[in-house]
């Protein structure tokens, strides 16, 4: 089982609902966020293109954060999700520095926090992650890459996609439909 998410940059309007839904679902304190929106504009007026991406932890198959963690707090969990055990984390910041996506941050309580794909609170109960479930444009797809019938497998079969910084060799599980 390999959980993955695909975000359709052609449909995303960058409304940030995913960001605030994550905050309320996961009690992320005000002033912090586990996901965010990036807007890339290319060209010269009036020949322009915009790509809008809802970004978060890539739940990499080859995760530098898991590798550099001195205590094993950062670990691979079910479906290849990368999680942090908060009472194993010493808050050294190595994983934060190791993430090419800047997806991790120090929680005000001291441990390192990041996107969990809502594994325990939603996915294991058969629901989509909060961001996916609220998205007004339905531009996000979630599921198991090993299951050919999952929404994410289906959409990746149909559409062209990319990952972020593939040259960093992290084998990310967050896909962007282009």
């Amino acid at each position: 089982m390999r959980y993955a998410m695909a975000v359709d940059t052609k449909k995303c309007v960058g409304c940030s609902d995913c960001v605030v839904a994550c905050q309320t679902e996961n009690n992320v304190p005000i002033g912090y966020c586990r996901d965010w929106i990036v807007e890339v504009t290319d060209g010269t007026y009036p020949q322009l293109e915009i790509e809008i991406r809802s970004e978060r932890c890539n739940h990499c198959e080859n995760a530098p954060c898991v590798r550099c963690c001195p205590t094993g707090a950062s670990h691979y969990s079910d479906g290849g999700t990368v999680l942090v055990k908060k009472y194993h984390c010493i808050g050294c910041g190595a994983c934060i520095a190791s993430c090419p996506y800047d997806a991790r941050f120090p929680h005000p309580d001291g441990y390192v926090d990041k996107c969990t794909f809502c594994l325990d609170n939603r996915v294991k109960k058969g629901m989509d992650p909060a961001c996916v479930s609220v998205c007004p444009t339905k531009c996000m797809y979630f599921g198991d890459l090993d299951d050919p019938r999952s929404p994410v497998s289906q959409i990746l079969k149909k559409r062209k996609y990319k990952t972020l910084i593939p040259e960093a060799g992290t084998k990310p599980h967050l896909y962007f439909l282009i």
Partner: protein
Amino acid sequence: MKTTRRQFIKVSSLYAGGVAMAGTGLKAASGLLNNLGGSTGGLSRTPTYCEICFWQCAGWVYKDDNGRIQKIIGNDDDPHCNGRLCPRGTGGVGMYHDEDRLKTPLIRRTVDGKQVFEEATWEEALDFIAEKMKTIAKEYGPECVVLFSHGSGGAHLGHMLKAFGSQSISAPSFAQCRGPREVAFLTTFGDIVYSPERTDIRDSRCLVFIGYHLGENMHNGQVQEMSDAIDKGATIITVDPRFSVAASKSKYWLPIKPATDLALLLSWIHVLIENGWYDKEYVEKYTFGFEQLREHVRQYTPEWAYGITTIDPNVIRRTAKEMYDASPAVIVHPGRHTTWYGDDTQRLRAVAILNAILGSWGRRGGFYFPERVQFPEYPTPPYPVPKRLPAEAYAGKYNLANEVVSNGICDATIPSVDSDCNFKVWLVNGTNLMLALPDQRKTLEAIQALELLVVIDTMPVEITGYADVVLPECTFLERYDMIRVSRHREPTLALRMPATEPKYHSKPGDWIARELGIRLGLEAYFPWKDMEEHLDWQLKQVGSSLEEMKRIGVKKFPRQYDDLYLHEGEDFFFNTNTGKIELYSTDMEEEGFPPLPVYTEHEQPPEGFYRLNYGRAPMHTFGRTANNPNLTDLMDENTLWVNPKVANLWGLENDQYIKLRNQDGIVSTFSIKVRITERIRWDSVYMVHGFGHDNKKLSRAHGRGINDTELITNVKTDPVMGGTGMRSNFVTFVFENKTVGKEAEA
């Protein structure tokens, strides 16, 4: 009655130590909550519909184990949101948690020659208001009391006011927003567009947006359907001088020269007619004045339009063909905020005509016929007939306006020799008129002329600073309101009920209206025991009940008639003078306006100035969310979009803070952060509306960015319906060393 000049008061600058609150209200509230716990059977979720914007999506409020409101999730059965709220709805929890909320009633008093707000009990505040209203009504008639409202509290206060004898109820959502489109569609089709819009976007094959930045304005259902349409491969054509998000999703983006849209629309009509690209049967059967239209638009060739709009004539032809190919599943979207240049009704008439000749009105993928539940009012005595209707304030003008023109009311509040119809009392609920009405100097002048200004709101905003009495309303999460009766593809009802007790000393709108009504001697108009009984009675008339609605939140009803779309060859009577779709408007002709839209040229910016364009951000609703902790987290200030060429010319740098000065010499109070981007034309600048708040009590919003409204002093009034055209204002950059707002903190 003598009034002194109102100074702006920063809310609660004087606290009377230990205000003894009357216990009755609180007891009532807790009793209500006990009932609630029993009837929901221990469910951790309660139904509501959102109040962060006018879309009013229905959802569920979830509380955690400690009883703290944690999240709001959309109701799957609600056609407004289909189970998915927008960021503002999801972030609606912040409205409840905001610690800057108005907490207790405040009354303006003069202490040692200085005007201050003093904390008061509800009894004191309501007695004060009722006494004043009675005295003023005795002298000037009850019609001199106006309610400006943009929110659910309006229903309760409006009822109270009508019972009092005044029909003067207005919202800035007409003359500052949708007015021109409603009047244009009413004169053309005999029906308005409504909110939520009756646009059948999900089945449309071609969407045309004229300066309508769907996606940045988060009109939830429409954004969702646009996404569906993209999935189905619909062609999107966006006309906008700015590369909006919608433009970026479009097959065609027409980067039009600002203020020339009508030329493009007329030339599209020209191309469609000249090439026979219109629905001949539909036009023949349903429309009036096609021949006059054909004659009228003959002059408006794409080449003519090119000289005005800078849009390539071939692109005009190609996009017209795209529309025709998709017709009748095509929507030339009427937009929402349409008060731009003062000839807006005419522009929207052109939009309506385009839709008419493409045959999209009443067709799948075009405009459907929405239906609503016939929902009875709780029986109350008939309202007294007022001696004067609010429209008499601007008698002889704006006869085609189908709602009350707020700026007309505002203007009529300022005493003048030629009017005996001055308004003396403003009740302002859920709308910050200082940011909503353009030309602030005029608004201030009107406020100074008032004998009583009561502001009923959840947050201390600019208008509260000018109030005589401030009443803290509780948020939508803490109250019952009227049942939401939606007009949609399927008729639905939605319930809002309190998820928790009102925080601080705030009160629900219905309680405020009722208590004030009782003090005004209007008990007969409030015969219900409480809102639960009121709503239950109403719901039972349509075969539901409060108990059922608490369980399901949203109830769908079957349509009474199978008339979502026109049937093949169906005879249809349109509610116009001719009974047909009026391409040639007899209403406009009667009122002395051009019956067919005529292109008029608008001002362009002088040397060194740039057109001030403004718009929306998906995470904010005007200025009302600017202090919401969850939403400020997403966006806490607006930025000034500047084309790189302009930035180069002025030596502007990204993230630099500057001020703006408009054509009338008005300089912005605060500074704004520069964003250099190719997404904006070189002759305009752009900012999101709703920032630059000047009330220090808004700890997160104060001084963040610029308030565009203060720079909008050149108002082009639409002679047809009184709309305030706000897009003929030009600004230039002011460099000051003085730091203010967010910049100063950094």
